[in-house]
Structure formats: C-alpha cells, structure tokens
C-alpha cells in the first residue's frame, strides 16, 4: 500500500466513521428483522456491519500480535461454521444458549486480561474503567456458566428438572452475590490483588451455576432471554471500558432485545422474572399428585384410524404444537398431515403459545423448517376466539400451555397463566407419550375432559399413522 493510502486508512477519523457505519448497519439490520420478507437481508446487513467493525478495530497503527489474532479467529471459525451448519432446528435452543455462553466467556476473559495488563487497575486507570470492567467480568461470568448449564439441560446432559439445594439455595446465592460485589468493590478501590479478582470470578461462576440449575425446562425461554440480555449488557460495559462506541451500541441493543423478550416470556407465564429466577418451579410436590389422583378419573384413548376419521370430517382443525413435537422431531410429519387435510378441504391453523417450547418463537422456527406458511401460525390472542368454531383441536406434545387449571383452579401453580383455550373446541385430540405430567409437573384436567381423546405414542409415529389412515379413507 502507498504511504498515502496507509495514512488515510489509519486515520482516526476514518476509523471512527467505519464504526459509525457499522452500528448504523446493526440498527438497519435489526429493522429488517421486523418482517419475514426482509429478515434475511436484515441479518446479512448486520453481519456486514460486524465485518466493518472488525476491520476498523484492526486498522490503527501499532496493533501487534497478529499471529495470536489469526489463531483465535481461525479456531473460532473452525468451530463456529460446522456447528451452525449442522445443528438441527430442534436443537436450536441449546445452540443459542451455547453461542450466548461463549460470548459471556469472551467478556470475562477480556476483563481479566485488562486487569492483568493494567497492573490490577493500577495507577493511570480511570476508576470508571475499573468499574465497567468489573461489571463486565461479573455479568459475563454469570452468563457464561448460566448458559452452559442451560445448554446442558436442553441437550439432556443434565436433568431438565429443577436441581436445588432446597432451603439453603437462596441464602447461599445471597452470600455469593455479596461476596462477588465485595470483591468487585475491593478491586475497584485499588486492591490490585489478582487473588481477589479471581475470587470474584469464581463467586460469579458459582452464582451462574446455582441460579440456572434450579430452573425447570418449561422456564427455559425466560432464562435464555435473560442470559442473552446479560451478555449484551456485559458487552456494552466492555465497550465503555475500552472506549469503543460500536461495542457500546451493539451490546446495548442486545441488552434491550433480551430484556424485552424476557419480559414478554414472563408475562406469557404470568410470573415475575424474580420468581422464575428463584427457581424450583413445579418439581417434586406436584409430581406425586399427578400419579395419585388418577384413580377417580378416567381418560379416553383413541386410535389413529378414529382420529383420522374425526379430522377428515372436520371443517376447522387447530394444531397446538408444544415441546413434545420438537422432541419427536414431528414437524415435517405434521406438515404432511396438514397437506392431507387441506386436500380434503379441511381448514388447518396452528395455535402458537408464546412460551411453547424452550425458547421464544421455538415452534415458529420448527414449523417454518417444515414449510408451514407463517400466515397459518396464529398467536394466542388471535386464535383463542377461533376455538369456539374449531371442530378438532389437535394437541401435539403441548401440555401446560393448554391447561384449563390456569383459568379455573386458584390453587394451581400455573393459575393466572394465559393459555390456549383448546377446551372450547368441539373435540380435542391429545398426542402424548404417556400420562406423565408436563415439565411444570402440574396435572392437566384437559386430559380428563369428556371431549378429549388421547392418542398415546411418539408424536412423529402417531401423526404418521394418522396420515396413512387419512390416505386410505
């Protein structure tokens, strides 16, 4: 490169301009995400913004350690691309948790390196830099460990049910929180002791583990959103510490997005975010009730052939998918069922509860993968009035989100949660593996309703058999 070009590219104004373009592209890209038609472009626009931000970071004179940079980027690319290419859509929640975790991990490692480089936030480090670095270190560490636990639970490496230390859990978390903050204050005040800094990281790590371990599978959408917000905020804090506007803007936007989603999910469950984080929802107590109370109530089971006849002569069928559909990977078979029904003139719609599945929008992604037009995916408020004129509500692997106890039993743990009112339909067919309760561990009166028939078995093979029967009609 000519010296003129070099001096232009390394000019601080040019670099600042690149950063401004970069975060402009982030915002523009996210605006694209507001509609399915423009979303692909939006995501790519944001990716270009990221590319520019990286280039801008590498332009200034005096950057060294190119070998290390290349090594890190190469390793990250070698891991990231195959992971993103090969992940199944049903595994998306754990993939998001994992990507979120590595982001948090990067944040706390960077803060640690900064601490070491500045001689433990020694002379010459403005106090605010120390404070924001410490904030980033704590939140990043909580997010890293919390996301890893969430990944473990979603991937089935850890049990999905709440794991808690019982009554000792909250006091322990409280003590860990105090210790973390105390260590941070000490470091900011100029302790310069790496042992204290590491102690702080360890306490934050334990806190991340202990906060997510007690949270049950059904609450995962809230947790993932919250951890996403955490990583975003920690990235913004790193941006302030390193005086990098692109990081501040990007981190803050993610913080905002994560907060909005967390709030939406918590509202959809009618529970406060704090109560969800306190964890231990459902679990042991309600589990026993599910087994014991069956004596005086009976369920009606049905066969694929009968279900097929019922569906074939319906005018409107509403499919209610839940996590069970994801587990069985039944989305493509469900789409086949929809085609078979539509060929017979049956109207088919999908009722999507905001917290169905394990992350916000989980069901939408699976059904999109199976080519279900998104116009047929109805949100809760739009579909609930429709159940009045629904002939058959077909519940596939959903449980708690259809539980009428949320409306009728004030003593139920899920009382007050907005549900899909499938019990208003003329008849209900529930596809279930067994009579176990849902992840919330709450018994579902819907199953004992006289309008309800249960089709036991793996969701995918059950739906497949129904499709075969439909073809034979």
């Amino acid at each position, binding site marked *: 490169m000519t010296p003129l070009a070099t001096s232009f590219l390394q000019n601080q104004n040019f670099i600042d301009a690149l950063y401004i373009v970069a975060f402009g592209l982030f915002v523009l890209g996210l605006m694209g995400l*507001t509609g399915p038609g423009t979303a692909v472009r939006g995501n790519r626009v944001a*990716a270009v913004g990221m590319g520019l931000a990286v280039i801008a*970071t590498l332009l200034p004179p005096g950057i060294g350690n190119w070998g*290390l940079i290349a090594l890190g980027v190469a390793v*990250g690319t070698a891991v990231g691309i195959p992971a*993103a290419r090969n992940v199944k859509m049903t595994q998306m929640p754990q993939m998001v948790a994992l990507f*979120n975790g590595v982001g948090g*991990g990067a944040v706390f490692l960077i803060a640690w390196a900064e601490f070491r480089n500045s001689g433990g936030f020694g002379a010459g480090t403005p106090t605010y830099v120390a404070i924001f670095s410490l904030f980033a270190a704590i939140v990043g560490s909580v997010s890293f460990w919390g996301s890893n636990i969430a990944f473990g639970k979603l991937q089935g490496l850890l049990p999905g049910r709440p794991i808690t230390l019982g009554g000792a859990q909250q006091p322990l978390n409280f003590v860990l929180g105090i210790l973390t903050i105390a260590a941070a204050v000490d470091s900011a005040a100029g302790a310069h002791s790496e042992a204290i800094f590491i102690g702080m990281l360890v306490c934050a790590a334990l806190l991340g583990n202990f906060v997510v371990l007690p949270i049950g599978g059904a609450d995962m959408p809230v947790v993932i959103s919250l951890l996403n917000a955490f990583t975003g905020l920690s990235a913004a804090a790193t941006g302030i510490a390193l005086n990098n506007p692109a990081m501040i803007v990007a981190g803050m936007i993610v913080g905002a997005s994560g907060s909005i989603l967390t709030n939406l999910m918590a509202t959809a469950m009618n529970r406060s975010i704090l109560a969800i984080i306190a964890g231990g929802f459902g679990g042991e107590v309600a589990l026993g009730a599910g087994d014991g109370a069956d004596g005086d109530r009976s369920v009606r089971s049905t066969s694929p052939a009968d279900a097929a006849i019922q569906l074939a002569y319906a005018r409107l069928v509403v499919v209610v998918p839940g996590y069970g559909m994801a587990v069985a990977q039944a989305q493509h078979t469900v789409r086949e069922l929809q085609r078979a029904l539509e060929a017979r003139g049956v109207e088919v719609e999908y009722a999507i509860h905001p917290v169905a599945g394990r992350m916000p929008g989980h069901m939408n992604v699976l059904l999109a993968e199976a080519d279900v037009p998104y116009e047929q*995916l109805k949100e809760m408020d739009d579909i609930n009035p429709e159940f009045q004129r629904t002939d058959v509500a077909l519940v596939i692997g959903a449980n708690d989100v259809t539980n009428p106890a949320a409306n009728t039993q004030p003593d139920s743990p899920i009382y007050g949660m907005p549900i899909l009112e499938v019990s208003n339909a003329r008849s209900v067919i529930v596809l279930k593996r067994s009579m176990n309760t849902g992840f919330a561990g709450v018994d579902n009166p819907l199953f004992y309703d006289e309008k309800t028939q249960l089709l036991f078995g793996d969701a995918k093979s059950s739906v497949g058999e129904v499709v075969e029967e439909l073809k034979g009609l």
Partner: protein
Amino acid sequence: MPSQLVTNLTILVLAGFVGFAVISKVPNTLHTPLMSGTNAIHGIVLLGGLLVVGFSGNGIFNKIILVIAIAFGTINVVGGFLVTDRMLEMFKRKPVASEEPEE
C-alpha cells in the same frame, strides 16, 4: 473536556432507546431468529479481544486467555450469523414455494 465517560454513557442510553424501539416491532414468529441474531451481534466482544491483544497482549497467560476470548467471540459472531441466516431462509422461501408449484 466533556469526559469520554459522559459521551459513552450518552451513547449507551440512546442505543438502549433505539434497541427498545426497533426490537418491540419484531413479531413473535421471528423471536428465535431475533434471539440468535442479537446473539451474533453481542459477539462484538470480539473487538475487545482484538484491541486488548493487539495493543497490550504481554505475558504468556494473558496471551492464552485472549486467544481463547477471540476464539469465543469468533464462534459467537460467525456461528450466530450463519445459524440465523439458515433459520431465516426457511421463513423466506415458504410463500414463494406455495405460489410457484412448478418447483
């Protein structure tokens, strides 16, 4: 000088408002891609790793944790954008597929 801190905090607050305004408009259908897209965006911490290692990566231990940080950040960015792209492609192609049965 109106300190760097004040400038940065101003950027932080305004970015928060922009974030809330834009993200509130994203429909439920796209919440998973939104989440994984914003996930990719917070991979911007990669820049932090680059800055710190580029300007002051001294000592073997610092170098190791920074390389890990850069690798983490890159996984976050590259994986996040790719997986979001894959998901969004599925949302996009559907109406086209149903309108053009010859495909």
